[in-house]
């Protein structure tokens, strides 16, 4: 069990660093989503299921949806489509 916990924590750190490194905003939002999901698992391992449910619903669900909405508003989701059309 301890190995799984260490792996999850390592994944958390890698996610947190790569969110800020990734150049594509869409990718960073998806990585942020996976960060929240792993964080929810860790909350369960830390025996606080209340926080786990809230983290999964708010962090991985609503926050990411609002981020995607913001990306669509600033036109970052149409970027790739334009490039494909040019090619």
């Amino acid at each position: 069990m301890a190995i799984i916990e260490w792996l999850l924590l390592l994944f958390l750190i890698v996610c947190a660093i790569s969110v800020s490194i990734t150049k594509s905003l869409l990718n960073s939002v998806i990585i942020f989503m996976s960060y929240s999901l792993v964080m929810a698992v860790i909350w369960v391992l830390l025996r606080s299921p209340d926080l786990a449910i809230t983290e999964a619903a708010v962090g991985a669900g609503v926050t990411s949806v609002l981020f995607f909405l913001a990306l669509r508003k600033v036109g970052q989701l149409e970027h790739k489509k334009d490039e494909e059309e040019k090619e």
Partner: protein
Amino acid sequence: MNDELKSIWLKFFNWVMGNGPRPENEVLPPEPPPDLPFTQKPHDKFSRFHEATLKERYNQWLEIHGLHIFSILYSALSILTCLVIVVLLLATVAELPPFGHERNPANNEVIRRYVEHGWHETGAQNIVAGLILDYRAFDTFGESSVLFTAAVSVLMILGNSRSSKKYKFKQLHVYRNDDTILRGVAVMAIPVILMMGCVVVINGHLSAGGGFAGGAILSTALILCANAYGFESVRRFFNERIFIVSSSTALMIYALSKGYSFFTGANQLHSIIPKGVVGNILSAGLILPLNICVGLIVAGTLYGFYALFSEGDI
């Protein structure tokens, strides 16, 4: 004689200065546009008799150096602000009691009281729900009212439903109404998500979860429905009016019932709210209705944020 001399002198003067009669097909250089601040008319620059007044010179100096000085001032002030905040926070940390000391104010009888008597006093099997909705219910009330206030202010700023802006917003979004995959997933997922949200809200005092988490789950179901079938289909059962009415009613019920409970508890009066048997659905006094109130507010607010930011209207 005098006039002739004058005209000859004028011709000579013009010849010397190069101001002779222009040929008709001469192309003049375009005059600089007068509005731009950086372009100066050439006669302003070279005329001997034009002395720049103090104000003009100040404006010129400001145009050249103003941005530089502003950026220096800006960074200096931001560094100063950061330093002040750092010093304040460090001073606060230095005032904190040492970590893990047994005489710390966090190690008082409150935790023991919660753990040992929480079951009997609140009637909640989930002691976290008993904490946040019974002992510390006014904190949760503050959270809910902050959420509601944020949603209402966003509605006031963005939700001008009767002006022509709404149609502009709508034109920005071309929804794929024929997205078969999304609709197929939504048909299967939405009832499950709604049921899950209701279970989390209603079982808040028995198992993990509660009003906030359940409300967030409900709002994701609403958002999925809005994405798959368009905002109009959600507006059929959840529009701006229903949002305002349900949220404010839930807040009022929360404030009144919890106010009654605190009033009777503080004055050692008999409360009419039954505690029930620990473990039943209908138990734990006020926690179940308060959970439902919080869930309603959170679901409405989070969906309202999504709708307002994407369409400009709930």
